[in-house]
């Protein structure tokens, strides 16, 4: 008989034993090793993915920071440029203001000096002219300039219209001269004025050097002056024009 049932049973037992042994020593171990390796590889992939993600985050962070720095740098540069322009404009303005201030100050000083000069000039020129005229008249015509001035004043006063004369006579009239009047001259003035204005009180005489050889009459709120200021002013005007035209000429190298 081809089948030995004891052998069949023994082979079944042998197979079951082999099944258990191979399960222990082959399939489970191989499967476990494969799973372990798969897990290891998966862990490595996961770790690599995490590192990649971290690197990507770091890269993005770096780019963000770089962009932020670039933006900040650009903003600061722009601000610095703006500040520099503003500062420059401010400094220029300050310099201009300072220059203008100095210029104005200088011009004011110049004007003041000029005014002072012309004032002194007028006085000195008038005085010089008066002295020169006085000497000239004294030496050549045997007469005095102040006498001529008083004379001229009296003739002009006499020639005044009634409307030009002061109407109020209550206040004391005053005659100012740039030189001392002699007693006779005062009397002749008093006489001439009284003839024209009989109700007028006695005249008060005083000396004002700035009039040089001019004569001023003040009464009843009216003031009449005869002096050489107009001539001196004309002379001053001519000198002033001469100076200004000299200033405006281009300077030659």
């Amino acid at each position, binding site marked *: 008989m*081809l*089948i*030995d*049932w*004891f*052998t*069949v*049973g*023994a*082979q*079944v037992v*042998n*197979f*079951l*034993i*082999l*099944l258990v*042994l*191979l*399960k222990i*020593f*082959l*399939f489970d*171990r*191989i*499967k*476990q*090793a*494969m799973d*372990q*390796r798969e897990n*290891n*590889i998966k862990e490595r992939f996961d770790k690599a993915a995490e590192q990649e993600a971290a690197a990507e985050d770091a890269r993005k962070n770096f780019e963000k920071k770089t962009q932020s720095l670039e933006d900040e740098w650009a903003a600061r540069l722009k601000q610095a440029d703006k500040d520099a322009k503003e500062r420059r404009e401010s400094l220029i303005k300050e310099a201009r203001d300072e220059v203008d201030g100095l210029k104005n100050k200088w011009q004011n000083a110049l004007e003041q000096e000029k005014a002072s000069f012309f004032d002194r000039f007028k006085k000195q020129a008038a005085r010089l002219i008066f002295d020169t005229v006085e000497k000239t008249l004294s030496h050549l015509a045997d007469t005095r300039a102040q006498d001529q001035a008083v004379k001229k004043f009296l003739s002009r006063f006499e020639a005044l219209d009634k409307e030009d004369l002061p109407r109020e006579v209550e206040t004391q009239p005053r005659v100012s001269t740039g030189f001392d009047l002699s007693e006779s001259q005062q009397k002749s003035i008093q006489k001439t004025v009284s003839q024209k204005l009989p109700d007028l009180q006695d005249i008060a005489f005083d000396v004002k050097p700035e009039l040089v050889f001019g004569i001023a009459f003040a009464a009843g709120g009216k003031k009449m002056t005869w002096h050489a200021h107009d001539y001196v002013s004309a002379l001053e005007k001519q000198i002033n024009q001469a100076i200004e035209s000299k200033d405006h000429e281009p300077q030659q190298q």
Partner: protein
Amino acid sequence: MNFMDIKQISPDQVVFFQYHFITLNLTIVFTWVVMALLVIGSWLVTRRLSTEPKISAWQNILEILVTGIQDQISEISRQKAKRYMPFIGTLFVFIAACNLLTVVPGYESPTASLSTTAALAICVFISVPLFGIAQKGLGSYLKQYIQPTVFMLPFNIMGELSRTLALAVRLFGNIMSGSKIVAILLAIIPFVFPVILQLLGLLTGLIQAYIFAVLAMVYIASATQVQDQTDTKKDDNQ
């Protein structure tokens, strides 16, 4: 050295020791040899398994073997291979080792014994309802014997028995005939031709191991398939 002569069909007939019904024959001895080779070889290879990407050649071969069996099981059963892996894997590895060792002079394959193939077929015959009941439950498993009608019960039982018998006889017939043909040809034409047939026998032996394992898996899968389809439907509905 030959333990069998040409007239002996099965290695069961070569008895080394007998006490009453207990016999120690060539089939059992070579089965133990194959078992020892497989277990010791497995132990030697798997005692230092590497979990790193770089592995030894032997580990690589075993992994290819295990992965191949696993894929076949998954492909046939459409289920997870883990549950069936030890049984189907042991069937394939044992039968393949028994058949491939025929190149060793003096070796007689245990699968050339009808007792061995019958024992393996009985293991399959028993495992099918066990897996089926474990998967579907007793009632559901037994119910399939009266499908589509109760009149199919004797035919289904006959089908179970006949396919078990077919499993045993197919493997036994192929291996036994192969070894006998080689033995006969060695006597007639002692040069070259028997070597070619021996190589062909190796291929046949490997194919037979594959067929046995695949058919066993098909039978188990058919016993567990209905429940699995139900589970799949449940999974789809969830």
